[in-house]
């Protein structure tokens, strides 16, 4: 072993290792889920987005996910320490933790769903679910025979209130006698509570149930009760078609996730806010089932298409607030700022928003 061969060996090893570092960088994308993947609702669709990313990029991207994460910074910090380049935090409640962790890891990019706080390395994204709610309200108002529609709300945040208002406006448009009964479950995913809430609403006369919670428990409760209509939430919930599930809102995150991962790989990622609806394909309307009469189905599909093309906005005046004060004039549409902070019911909905 002379000095020359040792030096040669060391140089070769060094050269090979730098080459190895250069092309073995796999982009790591992390996902933080608020519920279990098997919920058949919100988290299920985010996971479908993740699987689409894996399929699209193959070996160039590695994904990790943690499900049923309570609010807090620990999981995000762990993912960032584990080498993630891009982390998707998929619930409103993760807003402050995301901002805090993002401040500690300026090189990691964060995407926060349904929030409103951004930073240089934090983007926000959401879908215009209220457009889907408009179609739901339009169908529900025509299907209901008792004129009572039950709504299972999760938390009284603007997103949920937008959904209630949009559904109510469009139900009332086709059925002036309709009444909304709203129950707050204070959870995004709790099948036991959701089943109880659905049963209670049905007992109080509702024959259509709309939900902003993620499990299929209300569908099961509606099925047990008989003639009650429901809509799939966040996922198609097609195993309950054609009754009680007559349609659904499907969250389609795959195109957005693929686009953002590509941006990280290309180095073109910037902090943005994305709020897409039916048009760009982020919100899908599930197949309207055979339990719905043909004319209702046709008008619902027409509404969906007009929302998609942008020719109709779900919040178009004249609309008053619950206390009677004017909000939108005839023909005026709501601007995004008011929608993002919506904390009032529209005229006609009884009851107060819990604080």
């Amino acid at each position, binding site marked *: 072993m002379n000095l020359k061969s040792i030096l040669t060996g060391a140089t070769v090893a060094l050269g090979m290792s730098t080459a190895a570092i250069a092309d073995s960088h796999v982009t790591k994308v992390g996902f933080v889920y608020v519920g*279990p993947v098997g919920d*058949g609702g919100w988290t299920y669709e985010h996971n479908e987005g993740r699987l689409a990313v894996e399929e699209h990029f193959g070996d160039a991207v590695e994904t990790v996910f943690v499900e049923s994460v309570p609010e807090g910074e620990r999981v995000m910090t762990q993912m960032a320490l584990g080498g993630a380049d891009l982390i998707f935090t998929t619930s409103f409640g993760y807003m402050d933790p995301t901002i805090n962790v993002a401040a500690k890891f300026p090189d990691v990019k964060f995407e926060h769903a349904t929030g409103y706080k951004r930073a240089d390395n934090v983007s926000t994204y959401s879908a215009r679910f209220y457009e889907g709610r408009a179609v739901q309200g339009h169908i529900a108002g025509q299907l209901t025979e008792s004129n009572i529609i039950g709504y299972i709300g999760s938390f009284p945040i603007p997103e949920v209130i937008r959904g209630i208002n949009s559904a109510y406006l469009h139900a009332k448009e086709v059925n002036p006698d309709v009444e909304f009964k*709203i129950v707050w479950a204070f959870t995004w*995913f709790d099948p036991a509570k959701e089943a109880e809430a659905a*049963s209670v*609403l049905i007992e109080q*006369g509702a024959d259509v149930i709309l939900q902003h919670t993620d499990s299929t428990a209300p569908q099961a409760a509606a099925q047990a009760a008989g003639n009650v209509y429901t809509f799939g939430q966040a996922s198609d919930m097609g195993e309950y078609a054609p009754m009680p599930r007559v349609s659904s809102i499907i969250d389609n995150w795959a195109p957005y996730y693929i686009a953002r991962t590509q941006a990280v790989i290309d180095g073109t990622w910037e902090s943005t806010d994305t709020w897409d609806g039916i048009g760009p394909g982020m919100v899908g309307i599930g197949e309207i089932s055979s339990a719905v009469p043909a004319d209702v189905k046709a008008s619902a599909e027409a509404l969906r298409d007009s929302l998609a093309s942008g020719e109709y906005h779900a919040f178009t005046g004249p609309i008053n607030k619950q206390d009677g004060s004017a909000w939108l004039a005839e023909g005026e549409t709501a601007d995004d700022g008011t929608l993002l902070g919506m904390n009032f019911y529209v005229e006609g909905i009884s009851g107060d928003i*819990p604080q």
Partner: protein
Amino acid sequence: MDFSSINPILLLASLMVASTPILLAAIGELVVERAGVLNLGVEGMMITGAVCGFVVAYHSGSPWLGFICAALGGAALSMLFAFLTQFLLSNQVATGLALTLFGLGLSALIGQGYNGIKAPNFPDWHIPLLGDIPVIGPIVFQHDPMVYVGLLIVGAVWAFLKYSRAGLILRAVGENHDAAHALGYNVIFIRFLAIGFGGACAGLGGAYISLVRVPQWTEGMTAGAGWIALAIVVFASWKPSRLLLGAYLFGGVTVLQLNLQAAGLAIPVEYLSMSPYLATIIVLVIMSAGRAPGSLGKIFHASR
């Protein structure tokens, strides 16, 4: 605020259904505590029963088989507790709490992959003549079988404790295990049986939630029902008759809250979740009679 939309008949009927899981768990725990053992692991046993029952019912297609296996699952977990506290003489409170945590974790492990799956149907029984009585019929006689099983168990336990010799022996063991041992009764064996019964009932209660109430499996789905069952046993002063009342009261609270919300009167959720425990404290303060079994929670070590 439209109270006319609350249908009292449906409210009372759903109250009976909502109370069944905690009733089952509580009556099992009552027997255990009457035998002198404080088993705080009810939550763990309930959720283990829930997952066992759900898995078996899903694979076999028969909810009854699911219930039986749920009882066996709950009993099996309670045997672990029994071994630790009766043979290894560990502290009952600590072991019970550990059992709860263990049961929650074990059930989550077993339940992996069963999220979101539909359970087989468990239809209501419409009892032929009695079910048609105008008001009482829908309230009492049109439920699924497990509601009646729960009531039967309560009645059987009451009769057992009050009128049978075996019940007397159980009570004796609970009141003063040293005296019972001196009389020649096998304290450990009797406690094992009681703990097993308690576990089986808790398992049934848990399976009721996952097979009938929801009916789905989710991690942590019992959501504190086991703790309410423990509170009911104390509220009932260890008497089966008052236990029935307590179960209906506490079970009815959640149902009432949702009904009031839907009718337009929104009581903050926090008050409703506090109320079972507040009621228990009030009962304990007011009714100083109804003492606990004399040997409750004490470790038994046969010295002679």
